[in-house]
Structure formats: structure tokens, C-alpha cells
């Protein structure tokens, strides 16, 4: 662990002293895992838009298999044939990242935006961009925080013929980008990605506007919250957990998984119970929440890219409000419906995303912490479905009781924070769950959360587009 971390927390301007790509993961973990192997380098060489090995890539390279499909799809949406002009793509990425105040991604894409010939003026904020792009704000906001609110009316408004209308392929491209960067922001915060140690500020490429961004960096943000968290109630609970507990924690989890697998046939929950279990899980996700963050400080560097900054995730299952219909996963699946639509309007991206989703869902090394030869399918499915559950997507064929058994409370807190309010993620949250697990496994968790979130957003958006089409 890095000990510089806490000491530096009050210093706003200085770059973080934690070396390496992540503030959460010790540098040697990342380096040793990938050893910057040849494969990663080749991948970076091929797919990186910036031409350098950025921190995200470094952390992801722990899972090289996945990295390939990730980079490939990202490269495709940023650089290959597509309906949107290149600077638009990067600007949309900026808009998406700004929803989660992810300055890391914003910085990165401000650079790319300029490099691809974007108009520097746009970087002054939303007032300076064309109305057409501005119209994306609404859908960006909803998609980021409450995708279930997207209706076909939103789509209609965007594609309605007029001066600033979006064609469907353009819109799909934009939606894919938005979802991708919302989800990637989750990953960035969830894995505590450090700001890039700027190798090329000197070459005169950066404009003044860019330099503003370098000031705020992730580790500092986290430090502020760290401080506030120690005083918040649940933070305290974590502090007292002992290492000894964590060992038994792991054993208990293994035990539970085994039991779930075996008992499957014996104990058959009644149908009503299954239904209520989903509701329960949905409701419980309500309680799983960190302290109050109402007075969030959004720096102006970020806020100029967003409208309505107060709009955030609101629990799908909040009581006392209109009952929103649950999204039945079987009625609109990625494999059957989402894929076909997205691929029709933005060719080939479907295959790339499909491969990425499959990859992350099936990725396993059959290990759990120190144990080997473990079938982690259950655990992966629980993580994936729990994220979807928070977005109100229900799988008929899933027993949500499993989520409760497999995902401990601290993990749920982490999941919820990373997927719904990634900007509030702290190192403490990251450390407090699954303490016996390896960092690479936690990165795997982050990948699962990221992809689950992206798929959930895409499903809602694509469903709205489908409804618009019919």
C-alpha cells in the first residue's frame, strides 16, 4: 500500500504521489501482472488513439484477453467508419465523462478533440457548441443517471426533421459513445485511475484551456471524500473489521456458493417469493448508500460540459413514487434485440460490443483469492445481475436471493457507488470488500460492473429507439 496517500490529501494542486496507473492498486501489482508484455504493447500500438499506454490500459492489461476486445471496440467507435465526425465523437465522450465529473477522461478527450481538429472554442462550455450537440444533453443526463426514464419521445425529439436533427445512425453512434464513457467513468473511479503523468505537455500542443484540467485530479477528489467518509456512519463499521474476519469471510463465501449450487434442486422457492426477492433486492439497494453528498463540489472545469448538474442517480425503487415498470430482460435482450438494432444502424459495432460483453461475462481463471479450481459463474452472474437490478432490469430466470447470499454488504456499497455515483468512490470502499481477493480479481469486478452498466444503458436507449421505429 502506498502511504503517501493520506499525507497528501490536503494538497489540491500537486500531482498525486502515488506512482503507477492506479491509486488503489500498488504499482507493482499492475506491472508485474502485465510486465508490459508484448501483447499489450502490440494492442496499444494498434488501437490506442493517443499512441501511448495510458493508465486505463495499464490497469486493464491485467486481463489482456478483455483488453483486446475493449480497445478494439473503443478504437472502432472513435476512429473507424462511423456516422459522426471525429471531433464530435470526442466531444460526446467529454460530455459523457463530465456527467460523472471524471476529469481523467475529460482531459484525455480534450486532447484528442483538439488533435482531431475540433474547434477549440467548444471547450469553453456548452454555450459554445452547436445546437445539435447541445440537444444531446438531455439523453446524456438520463442515460448517465436514470436510463429508465428514456422514452421514445426523447428519441423522436432528436430525430425530428429540422435544422439540428440527428439521423438514427448518428444517434446510435452517439448513444454507444455515451454509454461507453459513462461506464468507463465507473471503471476509472472504481479502479482509482491516476491522472496521466503528462509526457507531452511540452510539445506545445496543449492550449491554455487544457491546462485548467490538470489541476483537479482524481486522487485529490477522493481524498476529500475519504475524509468525509471516515466520519460517516458506515465508514466506521468498516474500520473495525479485522483481518481474521476477512479470512473467514472468504471461506464463508465459498461455502455459500457451494451450498447454493448443491441446494438448487432441493429448496425451490415459490414463484411469489422469487418475485418478491427481486423487489427486495431492488429496495435494499436503496438502503445501500453512502452518506449525504448533496453539497457536491463540481469544479467549473467540468460543469461547463454539463447541464443540470444536480441531476443524479435516483433509486429505481424509491418508495412513494409512481411505480415504474420493471424492465423484463427477456423481452428485450441484448443478444436478440439490442444487437440487431445497433448493428443495423451502426454496422459492425454490434459484433464488437457483443464480443466484449461475452468476453467479460465468461472471463474466468477459476480462482478465488487463494483458492483454485473454483467455478465463479455464480459470482459473476450475481454481480452482473445486481447492477442490472439497480437499473430495474429483471431476469425471470434468476433467483435474486443469490445476490443476497453472495454479495456482502460492503461489496454492495461498492457496486452501487461505482455504478451509480462513481465519483464518490473511495479507496476505503475499494479496500473494504473481499479483502482476501487479489487486485486483479477486483479489477475483474470493475470490468463486470462497467460492462453491466454499459449494457443496461444501451438496453434502455435501444429499446426507446426500437419503440420509436415501430
Amino acid at each position, binding site marked *: 500500500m502506498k502511504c503517501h496517500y493520506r499525507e497528501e490529501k490536503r494538497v489540491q494542486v500537486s500531482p498525486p504521489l502515488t506512482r503507477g496507473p492506479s491509486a488503489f492498486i500498488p504499482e507493482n501489482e499492475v506491472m508485474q501482472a502485465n510486465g508490459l508484455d508484448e501483447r499489450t504493447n502490440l494492442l496499444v500500438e494498434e488501437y490506442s488513439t493517443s499512441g501511448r499506454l495510458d493508465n486505463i490500459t495499464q490497469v486493464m492489461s491485467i486481463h489482456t484477453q478483455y483488453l483486446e476486445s475493449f480497445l478494439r471496440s473503443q478504437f472502432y467507435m472513435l476512429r473507424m467508419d462511423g456516422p459522426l465526425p*471525429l*471531433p464530435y465523437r470526442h466531444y460526446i465522450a467529454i460530455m459523457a465523462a463530465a456527467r460523472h465529473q471524471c476529469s481523467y477522461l475529460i482531459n484525455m478527450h480534450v486532447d484528442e478533440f483538439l488533435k482531431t*481538429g475540433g474547434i*477549440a472554442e467548444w471547450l469553453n462550455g456548452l454555450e459554445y457548441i452547436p445546437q445539435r450537440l447541445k440537444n444531446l444533453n438531455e439523453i446524456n443526463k438520463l442515460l448517465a443517471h436514470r436510463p429508465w426514464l428514456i422514452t421514445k419521445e426523447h428519441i423522436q425529439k432528436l430525430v425530428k426533421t429540422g435544422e439540428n436533427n440527428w439521423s438514427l445512425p448518428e444517434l446510435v453512434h452517439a448513444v454507444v459513445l455515451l454509454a461507453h464513457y459513462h461506464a468507463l467513468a465507473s471503471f476509472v473511479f472504481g479502479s482509482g485511475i491516476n491522472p496521466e503523468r503528462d509526457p507531452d505537455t511540452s510539445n506545445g500542443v496543449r492550449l491554455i484551456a487544457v491546462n485548467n484540467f490538470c489541476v483537479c485530479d482524481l486522487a485529490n477528489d477522493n481524498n476529500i471524500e475519504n475524509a468525509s467518509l471516515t466520519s460517516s456512519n458506515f465508514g466506521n463499521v468498516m474500520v473495525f473489521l479485522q483481518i481474521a474476519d476477512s479470512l473467514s469471510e472468504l471461506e464463508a463465501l465459498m461455502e455459500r456458493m457451494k451450498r447454493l449450487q448443491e441446494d438448487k434442486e432441493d429448496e*425451490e422457492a415459490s414463484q411469489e417469493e422469487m418475485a418478491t426477492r427481486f423487489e427486495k433486492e431492488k429496495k435494499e439497494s436503496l438502503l445501500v448508500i453512502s452518506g449525504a453528498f448533496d453539497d457536491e463540489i463540481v469544479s467549473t472545469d467540468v460543469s461547463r460540459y454539463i447541464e443540470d448538474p444536480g441531476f443524479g442517480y435516483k433509486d429505481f425503487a424509491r418508495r412513494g413514487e409512481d411505480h415504474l415498470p420493471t424492465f423484463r430482460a*427477456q423481452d428485450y435482450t441484448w443478444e436478440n434485440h439490442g444487437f*440487431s438494432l445497433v448493428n*443495423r444502424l451502426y454496422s459492425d459495432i454490434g459484433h464488437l460490443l457483443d464480443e466484449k460483453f461475452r468476453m467479460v461475462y465468461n472471463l474466468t481463471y477459476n480462482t478465488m483469492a487463494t483458492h483454485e479450481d473454483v467455478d465463479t459463474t455464480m459470482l459473476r452472474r450475481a454481480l452482473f445481475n445486481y447492477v442490472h437490478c439497480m437499473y430495474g432490469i429483471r431476469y*425471470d430466470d434468476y433467483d435474486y436471493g443469490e445476490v443476497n447470499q453472495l454479495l456482502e454488504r460492503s461489496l454492495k456499497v461498492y457496486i452501487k457507488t461505482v455504478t451509480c455515483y462513481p465519483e464518490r468512490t473511495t479507496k476505503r470502499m475499494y479496500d473494504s470488500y473481499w479483502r482476501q481477493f487479489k487486485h486483479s480479481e477486483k479489477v475483474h469486478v470493475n470490468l463486470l460492473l462497467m460492462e453491466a452498466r454499459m449494457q443496461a444503458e444501451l438496453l434502455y436507449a435501444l429499446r426507446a429507439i426500437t419503440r420509436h421505429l415501430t
Partner: protein
Amino acid sequence: MEKMARVTTALGGNTLSGRTMFCHLDAPANAISVCRDAAQVVVAGRNIFKIYSIEEEQFVEKLNLRVGRKPSLNFSCADVVWHQMDENLLATAATNGVVVTWNLGKPSRNKQDQLFTEHKRTVNKVCFHPTEVYMLLSGSQDGYMKCFDLRKKDSVSTFSGQSESVRDVQFSIRDYFTFAATFENGNVQLWDIRRPDRYERMFTAHNGPVFCCDWHLEDRGWLATGGRDKMVKVWDMNTTRAKEIYCVQTIASVARVKWRPECKHHIATCSMMVDHNIYVWDVRRPFIPSAMFEEHKDVTTGIVWRHLHDPYFLLSGSKDSTLYQHIFKDASQPIDRANPEGLCYSLYGDLAFAAKESLISSDSNRKPYIGDRRHPIFFKRKLDPTEQFEYISSSSALSVFETDVESGSMDWFVHTAKQYALAGRPLAELCDHNAKVAKGLDRNQVAQTWTMLRIIYSSLGNVSSANLNHSMGKGSAALPLMNSFNLKDIPSGLGSESRLDRSKGESRTENILMDSSSTLINNEDNEETEGSDVPADYLLGDVEADEDDLYMMDHENPHAEEQEYSLPQEAFPLRHEIVDNPSALDHLQDKADSPHVSGNEAETVSLTPVESFSLISISHSLYENRLPSDFFSPIVRDTLLFYAEQGDVQTAVSVLIVLGERIRKEIDEQTQEHWYTSYIDLLQRFQLWNISNEVIKLSTCRAINCLNQASTTLHVNCSNCKRPMSNRGWICDRCRQCASMCAVCHHVVKGLFVWCQGCSHGGHLQHIMKWLETSSHCPAGCGHLCEYT
């Protein structure tokens, strides 16, 4: 539903009759299935599970199987199947992974019979054995297929698809023990029901999930599969390796396929997304469905032929919550709406025309194509007596008309395209230059237009009025018809035949000719007489009356291409010049490697023409009482429209680009876009790639600007193993070798790679260039004499 047909068919004592009809369901349907006697249909979905009887005039709800206070997920059906042996037996696949059987013979309200909860994920498909009463098969998302004996509580055997989700299972009709299963990864497996340990056969049928399959009802080795890749494929399973015998490309992913009873080659399909229609294809004619039912307003989820031996009744359920009975007589037949004639030009002005034989071949002594490209040629497809299409005869003839190379010459177009200057200089200079180009090519009216544009927009004075008059006079003189079919070369026999053909072909032939004239004759020189407005008979008369005259005229007016013009140096510089192009966001790739500052430079530079213009106009307005140039905008607009209308889109686009902002607002976006696309298309047909790129870059239409970004991929094969290199251009994934080494410096080439077409050695552009300046041999030492041009 006006055109309703009443159909009655007798099927061995069992008579089916009915009309196209539908009923509203309360909820979207996921699947439907019919009872053996074709009198009842069951509809199942997430919130519906009902049996309807099919009456003469309507559907009548018979039974609601969703009973109980709180409907459980067991009722949420993904699939339903009605046993073809026992009319009381049904099975459903629930989205929560339960397989349920239903016994309609039960006296109680709840007909639920057995519950199998062995699958862990959604069950996608259930299927009864065609002859065995108690055998039920299910396929699930969890990757397992299970066979149930309905007399027992648990499954009899489990077949593992290796954790690949099963999308469909179907018992073979021929082999008692065989069933086919389709998978999400594109595979199809054949299993023997007695051997659960391993599949008998497996092959990859589709790219992506195979959603459905269906065994042919008669030709028993045939299996049809439909996939997300929008294909329907028919496999012959009789051979040791499954052989694809037919393939139909649809427009959306295929959700269901069902062979049409009694019609060996017909198959009904519906799609999972976007497309709501049901198609019936003749698999031998994969390009156009033979029938189409367009009633549904949302995707069709279930289709089933009403009776096993009746090809005229199709039932369908849909997400739009309706259940339909379609009668074949009411089907729409896309073939009726399809254009049975095809017409296409080649680059050299040859015209191919395909049409139904009856329209063309009243002429019996026409000779078939004998290989001489100078003559009109005819292909004829004989009707295959074994093929029997219900609706159309498929015999058609293809005629190819050739134009004489000389007369069809479009050299003026090429020259103009190459020589016009479109940007990079002040407006006045551009106009002057272009006027000169046009004049040089004897296109006086165009030259005049350019001159006038200059006067209007920059009024640099001193245009000689004499010049004006002169050109005017010349413009109105009779000008030769440059392009027409020149039949002179055709030997008399054939020539007269083809002429005969034309006159007999009547209106149709006229059409071709008219089309040809309006497309081919893009020449300003004859705008007085030409244009698409020209009545067809005039042209036709011309051609038929006096071909020799036409020919003579061509001779009298020597062609422009005989004159030599040197290209102005700055017309199309190798490096892109920077233009005032506010809506062009995408010439970024060019700039990607240059520092951002260049963006600013771009803006200042681009302003130059405008500035110079304003300065000039001010100085002149001192002594000239000028009208504002806006005053002429409508006239200029009309001019452009006129040229475009005449088919000279070149002039229209060139003027548009040169004038830029001054005129852009006068013409609506769509028209502009249309012009640009036409011009670019023409340029590309003449392989003027650089110029077409120039035009794309200079265009101010967003849609056009994007063109430069599309298809920028170049696919290469590895020089070692000759296989495509999918990932990067310089290293091969398979043989792990760097494929493109520079022969000079022996480093990998990642940027521009130039290679000799003779010996295929090459390397960095710069290196090769340098090398070949001093040496004439290949740098690789292969001894080839390479050339760098």
C-alpha cells in the same frame, strides 16, 4: 380489409375455410401453436396464455389457461407447443426456466399438469416428438437440452451444449431418434436421443446466434435455419457433411422459419427486430419473397401453418397483441411491384437493358450474342421446364447497346474537371480561369456564365462587350449533337435488325433512348436542343432518320480532346489547401499530425478570397453605380438550376464551390447535396479520384463532407502466408512475421508503403524514391528492374 378472399380447401374429409381475419389479444404474444385438427390455436406470451378456436369469420376465445390470483412466472411463456398426436396435451417453456405441461382434459380450471424445474435459465424452446406421445424436448439458455418422459417426474436425459445457449430444438421427422439443436454461437448440432454423451454431428451454420430451425416436411434430409446474421439457410443433411443448398438473405434477423406445407421450396419467415412482415420465400429465388403479409404493426413473434397439409392458411401472433389468420390469396406479392426492367450504363456509354422477353423479342431473327462487342448483344434465359413459379415467367432478355467510342466521348468532361480551378485564388481569377477552360473546350455558354459571374461578384471591369456578343451569337448557333448512338459501324445486317428492334419495341425503346440522351449528353454545346425536357420523338426521329448526318456532324466538329492543354500548376495541388469551410469538421485526419495552431492558421488563410473580394468591390463602387451582388443571386441560382437540369451538374457544382457563401444560401441543402453526389459519382466513374476528393473536401454539405471519412480501410494480405492481415497492417497474426519490411532500411513500414508491381518488393516511400534515383534495380536484390514514376 377490402380484398378478402374466402378459401376452402378440402383435406381428406377435413375442410378448411376462412378469410383473413384477426383478433386482439390482451398482451403481446411470444409464440403460437395449432392443434392437430387445425381448429384451435394457442397463444402464449408473458402475460397471455389462451386458446382460441378458429371459426369461419373470427377467432373465438375458448379457454384462458392463466388462472390463479397471482400469476406466477410459470405462466410467462417463451414458447408453446401443441402435441400433434394428442389434442389435450400442451407444453410451454417459461422465461424462468420451468417447463410446464398442460392437460386440457383435466376437469379442474387449472389445467397445469407437470412442472419440470430442471433448467437454470430461460427455456427458449420446447418440442414434442412427432410420433411419440410422451416425449418432450426442451432447450434452454443454460446450455442444456433435456428430454422428458411425461410419465416420469424428471428428465430422462440431458444433452450438454457446452454452456452455449440453446435457441431451438426440433425433432427430425424422418429419423425417430434424431433432433437438431441450434446455438447462440452459430452452431447447429444433431443429436441421437439415445446418446446423451455426445452429439452426432455439428456444423457452423451462421455468424452469430441461430434463432430457429425447421425440418422439411417432405424432403426429409433438409433443415432450414435462420440466424441473427439475417440469413435463412437450407442444409442438406443426407450427405456426410451438411451441405448448404440454398441461402436467402433477408433484411432483418430471422426469428422463425416454417416450411410451407405441400410446397417443396417454400418457406415462411418472420424477423425478430424492425421488420414486421411475414415473408414466404421460394428458396430457389432468394432475392424477392414470393409472398408477403404486412398486417402486423410490431414484430411477428410466432408463425405457424394452420394445417399440416394446407399451404394456404398461415397463423401469426405478434408483439402488437394481435393474432392473425392470413390467407394466401390476400398476400401481397412484391414481384408485382418490382420493376422487371433493368437499365445500366457502362463507363464507356454502353447501355445494357434487361426486360421480360415478351417486351423485347417480337423479333425472331435476332441473333444471340456471339462475342463481338461491337454489336448489340442479346442474352436470353430459357425457362427451365422443371421450375414452376406460380406467378411470373422468368424468361428475360438482356440487350447491350454499344456506343461508338468517339461519339460517346466525354473528354470535355474530363478535361474540364481536371482544369477547373475551384479554390485557392481570388474569385475573379477563378472565374477567369474557368471561363478560359470552358472556352478552350468550345463550351461558350459555360464560358460566358463564368465571365458573367465574375462581373456580378467581383466586377473587375474590362470585359469586352464584343466578346460577349460574339459568344452569345455563337451560343445560339446550331451546335452538333455530340453524343448519340452511332450505329454507323454496325454491319448492315445487324444494324438494321437492331433498328427494327427499336421501332418495334415502341415506347419502351423510346424510353431507353431518351434516358440515354439525357444522361449521356451532358454537353453544353447542345443545350439549345438537348435536355431531359426534349420530347422523345424528336430525338428518336433524329436518330432513326439520319444517322449519317449525325455522324457527319461529329466529323465536322473536331473534338476538343485533340487540343492540348497544360494543367495550371495550382489547379489541384498535392497538398490540400485550406478553405473556408465552417461546416466541414472532418478534414481532421489531414491535420491530425500537425499542431493545433494550424487550425487557427486555417481560418485566417481561408478568409483571403472574401477579403480581396470586398476590397475590390469597394474600389469599383466608387465610379460604378453598382447593384449589390445579392441582387443577382436569384439569377445565378436559376442559372445553376438550369445547368443541373440539363445534366451538366459539373458546371453547377463548380460554380457552387467557387461562389461558396455568396450563393449557398440560395439553394436548398438537399439540391446541393444531390448535385454534389451526382458530380462525385461522375468523377469517380471517370476515375478522377483526386478531383472527386477535392470536390468532397471543398463541399460545404455535411453529408458530402463525411464521404471522405467512410471506407478508409485498406485490406492487405500477408506477403508470407498470403492470408488477410486482420489486425495490423505490418505484422501477420498467423505467421508472426512482419509482413511489410522496407527493402532499403529493413525496418517495418507502418506508414506509406510503396511497392513494385513487378517484383512486389517495396518499402518506405522516401527510401524507395531515393534508391531508384540512383539505381534501376530492385533494392531487395531480386534483379528486377523497378521503375518509380
